[in-house]
């Protein structure tokens, strides 16, 4: 039985999904902080949120790279 494959798949799934979700959630949180009215948040928070979304996008693009055999061979 391919138990090893099963564990690998489960692990990879967990890592990939958690990466994407953590990055995106951080982005969402930072956007929310940057949008606060009362406390003027530092400007870098906004850019940090963009970086988070950007990294998340990169993670998704990597997924695309994997599913399209033209790129990954």
């Amino acid at each position, binding site marked *: 039985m391919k138990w090893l*494959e099963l564990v690998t798949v489960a692990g990879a*799934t967990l890592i990939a999904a958690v990466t*994407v979700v953590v990055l*995106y959630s951080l*982005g*969402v949180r930072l956007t*929310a902080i940057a949008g606060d009215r009362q406390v003027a948040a530092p400007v870098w928070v906004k850019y940090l949120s963009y970086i988070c979304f950007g990294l998340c996008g990169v993670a998704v693009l990597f*997924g695309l790279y994997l599913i399209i*055999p033209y790129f990954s061979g």
Partner: protein
Amino acid sequence: MVALVIALALFFDFTNGFHDTANAMATPIATGAIKPKTAVALAAALNLVGAFLSTEVAKTVSGGIIREGSGGVQITPDIIFAGLMGAILWNMITWLKGLPSSSSHALFGGLIGAAIAGIGFHTVNLETLLQKVILPAVFAPVIAGLVAYVCTRIAYALTSRHDPETGSKLTQKRGGFRTGQIFTSSLVALAHGTNDAQKTMGIITLVLIAAGTQDPGSGPQLWVITACALAIAIGTYAGGWRIIRTMGAGLTEVKPAQGFAAESSTASAILASSHLGFALSTTQVASGSVIGSGMGRRGTTVRWGMVGRIALGWLFTLPAAGIVGALTALLVKTGVVGVVIAAVAGTAAVLYMFLVSRKSQVGHHNAVEVEEAGQAVRFAKKKALARARAAERARNNNPKGPQR
């Protein structure tokens, strides 16, 4: 016979498409991230693209479950015809019931049944069956569910903000997850296109080779690829609204952050499984994710009754499609008359189910009632929130329509 099988294969591709729209698009539709019609159009386009992107021939369709080749049996167009018949009928029945069930399992079931009835029991490789179908069916929802549970927890933990002094909630902008949902669900749709259209291409190529019109060992021809891509795209656009309703609203309520977590898990699970050699069914992964994310968000209930119905449906997929496949194989064995009877009976059954479905229409307009409560939360009006919650509860207590 060859033409008949090709037509049937394309129709199977069509049912596969509309059966699986829900996997990618149910959660964004439920949270209002994408408008229903736009969502199915997007999914259809991505399925079309996906079918063209990955033109590796699907590994033998039966994947070793039926012993074939030297020392085994030759899969004939007759067997494939019978197997497809079983798969299509089961797909139609589960669609009518609004149950998400795996199209690949239906196909396996149909082929296995047809092979047993048409040739004999020795044709089935039980160990491969266990390894390729039954174990993944158990683990796919479990893995996806656990991952989605963890992800939902993380997403909510990371975005929950409280004022340190008053302890009241600050704006959380969780609506931002809606934008993310567009991308994650698109990824799922694309992955579906690269996987599922391949199955039909594999079948048609198999038939063409068996009929001697194509060299053995050659890949699918361009018209086959195009036809399959179009069939799955049209099927996806037709939208299995009943299944979308089940996945988007029947299992649990879906909020943007939760939907995002569920789709990320689905996409990762499908990609990981198709690249690390432990194939998981898209449908089962997606259903597991939705359930897991429902358990992960506080204040949500998972409707276990519906979960039980779906699990029951999965349990029956293989044997039910197998029985139809077997009966068709027996009919086909009797000769041309049998084939005609099988074809006519199959068409009649599909038509009948279509007519029954007309009685209680589920379309893009009423598949999922987009949760207005999400809007209320964003404006943080306690009264509106309470009112929305009450309405929601009332709605849950009086399920309308025959589907819930």
